[in-house]
């Protein structure tokens, strides 16, 4: 498509669209930016986008607006993010994100997000983990829901706006955004040069399988938490879209970095999050000094309580980063058997905070506790335990640096995967959080990611030499037929394995041996077991063959993807012999007297991204190839990529939150925050 032609239509008058898969915050923000650039979008989602997993984010969104006179700044935010991620995050995008954050929060405010306010009517900010500043804007304790609704509303507005042709005349019947809700992405359509020209998707109500030409495709499909059976993630978070793209050649990075959130409540169907904001607002974590203390927690006097986080981390107290807090809870419960009643539970206590204040700031999460546990958390300490929460790893994506070393917005390289024309953003990408994500940085990274990915895709779209519509229809028909055939085969599978049961087994073993503490001998067994599951998957049974709203067959398809990604995660964890962020191997912990090889974080060998590449199958079993470098193209530009992490903006430093001075202070320009005097005793 040369520049003289219409941008939005082909010569034949067909509207040229890009596709965004996933309607959470990252996907919706990408859509909005595309629409503002005049690029029409097809938006695919497993559920109505208003029900995407972003609704589950509770605590808030970080932005160093510094309204509390503490001397916070985007630079400090950047440094804390990088330190929190144990230096595995790519620094230029992190700097771009921290610098853009204040304007992002202002934008959301303009969109009508009901953020909590100060008495003066300004945005209020609360504290979160891994920082000493009040940096987190929040809307009660359902911030993700409120942000998602704001973006959903803006996208709905674009659904009611028509595409404009080259003369600026609207094309009736062609809205800027076409939504395909209850559609499951099943395949990328690649041309002979492995460039994306569209996708195949399935309608989950009629089960129709259809191809869609697309000038570019963006996956914004969230995390893969369901691989671990029960987690804090929604049941739609199977990671399937990433698994599909990975199988088609996209590189998956840092898969082994899975965040375990310290405070969740157990359930038969799900582990429900109790946000870090509970601690940000003053919540305290403790266990009775006598684990078998029979008294009600309210009757246990202060001196007979053990505030183990406050004792060990006198400055950050209950707000150490999540990986640190989760390991401490795990050590108390499993190591010392000092959990409540010897069980795997600790108290998260808010009862010292006035009820009226809690209702204003935390009602959303306290309501969840009350509804699911049946105990009033305003007057009784909550019982919590860690749960799988977030994937720092995800699809590998590129970035372009500007002269200052920050992100160059508008470059087609930003958020581009190694498959030309395929983009990835949100939890499903890998670049902002390194080895551990700081609380309230996820909402920020989804929206910032979208604000960068939209313009990147628009640039790519503008630079395309050839439209998807210029390819023979056979390219699309072939892909469509191949997927229909696969689906029919799945429907005809008459083995003995129930996919739901097989999934439960996968979840159990991943949860037990591939989360908070990792031992190489146990991971070897996990990998062996995954192979066994893949063998059993070939003997799967189609438990439902109905032609309407069939959930069993798409689930079986998702299970195949979960098995593939489970292997990427487990194999990555097996290979990485060090301790970094959420990836913790006691055998390599320098502080563990029993460690086999006490190295801690091993920057010499492991300050690098894990890059996983689909290696095909050996019989039923999938294979992963780990690569150190590769090349990819955008247009005619050939780009060489290595696994080196960009640490050009902040020098390496030891990550230690136990000291009485701020962990970032070494080279941060701003002074110590004034409100949290380090002299305070635990």
């Amino acid at each position, binding site marked *: 498509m040369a520049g003289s032609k219409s941008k939005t239509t082909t010569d034949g008058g067909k509207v040229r669209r890009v596709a965004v898969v996933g309607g959470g915050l990252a996907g919706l923000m990408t859509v909005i*930016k595309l629409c*503002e650039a005049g690029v029409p979008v097809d938006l695919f989602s497993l*559920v*109505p986008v*208003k*029900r*995407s*997993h972003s*609704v*589950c984010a509770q605590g808030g969104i970080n932005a160093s607006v510094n309204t509390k006179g503490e001397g916070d700044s985007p630079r400090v935010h950047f440094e804390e993010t990088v330190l929190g991620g144990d230096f595995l995050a790519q620094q230029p995008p992190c700097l771009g994100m921290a610098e853009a954050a204040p*304007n992002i929060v*202002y*934008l959301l*405010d*303009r*969109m*009508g997000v*009901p*953020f909590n*306010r*100060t*008495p003066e*009517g*300004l*945005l209020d900010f609360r504290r979160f983990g891994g920082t000493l500043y009040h940096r987190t804007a929040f*809307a*009660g304790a*359902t911030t993700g829901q409120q942000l998602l*609704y704001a973006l959903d*509303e*803006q996208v*709905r*507005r674009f*659904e*009611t706006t028509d595409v404009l042709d080259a003369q600026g005349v609207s094309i009736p019947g062609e809205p800027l955004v076409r939504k395909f809700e209850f559609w499951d992405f099943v395949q990328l359509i690649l041309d002979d040069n492995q460039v994306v020209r569209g996708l195949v998707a399935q309608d989950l*109500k009629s089960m129709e399988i259809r191809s869609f030409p697309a000038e570019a495709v963006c996956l914004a499909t969230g995390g893969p938490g369901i691989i671990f059976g029960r987690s804090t993630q*929604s*049941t739609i978070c199977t990671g399937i879209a990433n698994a599909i793209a990975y199988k088609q050649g996209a590189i998956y990075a840092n898969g082994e970095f899975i965040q375990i959130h310290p405070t969740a409540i157990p*359930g*038969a*169907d*799900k582990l*429900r*999050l109790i946000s870090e904001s509970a601690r940000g607002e003053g919540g305290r974590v403790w266990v009775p000094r006598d684990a078998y203390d029979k008294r009600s927690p309210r009757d246990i006097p202060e001196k007979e309580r053990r505030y183990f986080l406050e004792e060990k981390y006198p400055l950050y107290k209950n707000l150490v980063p999540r990986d640190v807090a989760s390991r401490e809870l795990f050590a108390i419960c499993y190591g010392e058997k000092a959990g409540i009643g010897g069980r795997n539970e600790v108290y998260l206590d808010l009862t010292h905070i006035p009820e009226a204040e809690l209702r*204003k700031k935390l009602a*959303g999460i306290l309501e*969840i506790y009350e*509804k699911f546990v049946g105990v009033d958390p305003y007057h009784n300490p909550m019982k919590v335990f860690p749960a799988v929460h977030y994937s720092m790893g995800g699809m590998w994506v590129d970035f372009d640096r500007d002269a200052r070393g920050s992100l160059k917005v508008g470059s087609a390289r930003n958020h581009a995967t190694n498959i030309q024309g395929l983009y990835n953003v949100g939890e499903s990408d890998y670049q902002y959080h390194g080895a551990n994500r700081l609380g309230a940085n996820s909402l920020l990274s989804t929206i910032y990611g979208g604000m960068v990915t939209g313009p990147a895709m628009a640039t790519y779209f503008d630079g395309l030499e050839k439209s998807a519509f210029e390819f023979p229809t056979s390219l699309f028909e072939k892909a469509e037929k191949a997927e229909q055939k696969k689906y029919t085969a799945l429907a005809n599978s008459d083995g003995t394995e*129930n996919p*739901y*049961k097989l999934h*439960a087994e996968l979840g159990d073993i991943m949860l037990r041996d591939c989360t908070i503490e990792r031992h190489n001998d146990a991971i070897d067994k996990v990998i062996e077991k995954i192979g066994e599951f893949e063998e059993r998957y070939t003997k799967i049974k189609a*438990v*439902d063959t*109905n032609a*309407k*709203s*069939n*959930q*069993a067959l798409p689930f079986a398809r998702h299970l195949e993807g979960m098995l593939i990604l489970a292997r990427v995660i487990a194999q990555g964890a097996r290979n990485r012999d060090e301790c970094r962020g959420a990836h913790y191997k006691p055998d390599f912990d320098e502080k563990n007297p029993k460690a086999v090889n006490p190295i801690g974080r091993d920057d010499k060998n492991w300050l690098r991204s894990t890059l996983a590449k689909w290696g095909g199958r050996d019989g039923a079993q999938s294979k992963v190839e780990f690569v150190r470098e590769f090349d990819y193209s955008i247009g005619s530009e050939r780009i060489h990529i290595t696994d080196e992490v960009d640490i050009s903006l902040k020098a390496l430093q030891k990550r230690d939150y136990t000291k009485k001075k701020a962990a970032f202070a070494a080279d941060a320009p701003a002074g110590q925050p004034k409100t949290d005097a380090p002299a305070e005793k635990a």
Partner: protein
Amino acid sequence: MAAENKRPITFRIKRSLDGKRDASTWEEFEIPWEPQMNVISALMAIQKNPTTKGGKDTVPVVWEQACLEEVCGSCTMVINGKVRQACTTLIDAISPNGEPVTIEPMTKFPLVRDLIVDRSRMFENLKRAKAWIFIDGTHALGAGPRVAPEEQEVAYSLSRCMTCGCCTEACPNVNDHSSFMGPAVISQVRLFNMHPSGHMNANERLDSMMGEGGIAECGKAQNCVQVCPKEIPLTESIAVIGRDTMKRALFGWLLK
């Protein structure tokens, strides 16, 4: 109650594989009790073992779900005659002594299959009401308007609407003989009209509430506010928008 005292629970589920209500049938399943059991975990147990109480092999029941913590609005069903979210329906609360549990799809929306109905109408209503703020663009335009904390509290309570459909299901004025949009969207009009910049398009939204299927068709039964899982003050919203549309109908032409 200790686990050993818990008997298996019987679930009676109204099913339709092709979405034809007239041809719906009931199936019974017996599921072992487990700690923290809710309606969702029971349905998940059926997926793993799709066999009826009578020992007949059947297909898994289908339903909508996502977050399982009552914030996404997916899993609305009629459980023991009451419309509610399946995730927050704890078995110990509704079946303390092992009483059978009845599950049906909502009746005010087109049936798709089993417990799935088509709620797209509710999202269409949001388009009709222009339920968004008309921002000038997503580029940096500085801070938003100041909002008093009391205003924020009201806005937040309205903004928690998950479009779950409970209010619509419970509303007697939503039926085969009316085109009433239901309470949810009216409350959204209030939300956007009270916002300092949303207010600039207040009249457009009020107009959208005044035509066919609009607010005048509310019969003030007040069922909506009782079933809303998020305790949104729906009747208050209806009163506010009722007053505003009335004013607009009476004096709107003067102000044009």
